[in-house]
């Protein structure tokens, strides 16, 4: 069996797996194109009989999606930056040592994210309103998301730092770098796989964050896309096709962007470093 054939075969299998896994995505796409009731039809239709292409422009305009997406982007970038700034160092230290304090730190970090956002929002809202943070609602949401997602980030990035040989950092120290310099020049680039992927995951989460945003951001102009999506949900009505169209518009580009980004997960970043 030649390599070429094996590659072909693997690719075919991968396509099938992806097709299965991506089915919900496909369903989102075609539901957006179906009329409101066609999606309830038995048997299900895998291609809409009358695709409603106009729905995209309708959804985009009626909800002023540009603004929503912009806000989502601001919030997600803010949250990822904050988390990265605070979390990377923390994860690094937790990976570097092996003692009781690290255990305690890890334990605390895990425990601090145990409550679902829905149970956290009340106390956070109360606290934020008292210190006046609600006057800058997007910033408040960024803070809240950062707190919520940082433990996730720290725990994962810590696991990547575990793979970076200590000797490389030592070599940098002997070469005349400070701890900070060695961290940025050596350790960080070598842990980039994990950091990148964790950051992507955090970004996506923050981009779609809903519970904090809807409570803390009262002005529509500042609300993110996730809140905008819910405007299709009424007391007795759910405009599913619009919801799906809306989701399509915001999922597709992000997905595409991150498919590209995560390709940088290359294996063996540290290979060749040590004897």
């Amino acid at each position: 069996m030649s390599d070429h054939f094996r590659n072909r075969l693997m690719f075919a299998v991968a396509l099938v797996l992806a097709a299965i896994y991506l089915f919900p995505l496909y369903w989102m796409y075609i539901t957006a194109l179906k009329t409101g009731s066609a999606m309830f039809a038995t048997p299900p239709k895998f291609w809409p009989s009358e695709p409603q292409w106009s729905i995209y422009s309708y959804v985009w305009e009626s909800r002023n999606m540009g603004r929503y997406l912009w806000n989502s982007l601001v919030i997600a970038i803010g949250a990822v930056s904050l988390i990265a700034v605070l979390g990377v160092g923390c994860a690094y230290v937790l990976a570097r040592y092996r003692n009781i304090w690290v255990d305690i730190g890890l334990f605390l970090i895990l425990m601090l994210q145990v409550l679902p956002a829905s149970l956290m929002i009340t106390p956070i809202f109360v606290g934020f309103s008292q210190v006046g943070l609600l006057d800058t609602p997007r910033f408040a949401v960024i803070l809240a998301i950062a707190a919520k997602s940082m433990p996730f980030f720290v725990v994962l990035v810590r696991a990547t730092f575990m793979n970076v040989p200590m000797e490389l950092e030592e070599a940098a120290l002997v070469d005349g770098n400070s701890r900070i310099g060695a961290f940025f020049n050596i350790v960080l680039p070598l842990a980039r796989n994990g950091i990148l992927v964790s950051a992507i995951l955090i970004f996506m989460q923050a981009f779609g964050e809903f519970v904090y945003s809807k409570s803390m951001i009262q002005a529509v102009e500042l609300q993110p896309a996730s809140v905008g999506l819910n405007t299709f949900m009424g007391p007795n009505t759910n405009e599913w096709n619009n919801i799906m169209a809306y989701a399509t518009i915001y999922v597709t580009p992000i997905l595409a962007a991150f498919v590209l980004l995560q390709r940088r997960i290359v294996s063996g970043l540290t290979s060749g470093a040590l004897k």
Partner: protein
Amino acid sequence: MKRILASVTDGKGFDIGLVVLPLAFLFVMSGLPLVYNVVMSFQEVDMFSLGSFLRPFVGFKNYVDLFSQPETRPILFNTALFVSASIAGQFLIGFGLALFFWVNFPGASWLRGLFLVSWVMPGLVVGAIWNWILSGDFGVLNFLLRETGVIDGNIFWRSDPNYSLWAVIIANIWLGTSFNMILLSVGLSGIPKDLYEAAELDGANALQRFWTITLPMMRSTIGAIIALGLIFTLQQFDLFAAITSGGPNNTSNVTQYWAWDLSFRQYDFAKGATISVIMIVFVMFASVVYVRSTRHEVRG
């Protein structure tokens, strides 16, 4: 002063600073709300007294009340089942996919990226889609199973008490698989190739290499993923809201959905908080297991 400064750039001070800062941030942002919830579970909470800590103290009354309710036990059982089945499913499928895409065939990295989709789709949309997929009459799952001859009659995934919890588990596994897969991929990429070469020369076949090299070398990643997966699963309630609403008759109800339902549907915040404390205890246990497991990690 100079000493302190030096320690910040080169010594322990650097490390302590890096940890203390985020921990302090976390403590304020997450720790206090946690405490707030715990305190609330011992109080009588009036929906209009949410803004203050000073509420009538009722001791363990909330706990006693909670455990005297008939649905409590099945819900706790459901939670355990939901969590373990979801994590097992996500992890196994995720690991399988990660291993599959680890074989570096052309296109692997692109396709792997597409699996991130479950992470980026909004919860509302995911819930709705699975709602349709799992629907008894027009559900695609039933349609496919029927067409392929696996089943004769429709399974009412959402509404049959025997299946309802599994309906949510299936959806949740789908949701969590990408998270597992992508992070396990990262973990796999961190294992030095020469270990596999050595093992292969030592006569280990693929399965043996997996058990003796891959798994132990990924210990820290796996530990982290399972610990986080547990926490995520314990927070998952979008899917319950969308697919079964905990029904029928609580057969698919779990603590997190119940806590949410109590707090935000029945406005019984104290009970909601009480349940959350039970969850905290559960996670505490899991965290201890995780932290202990880090003892055996291999440092590169």
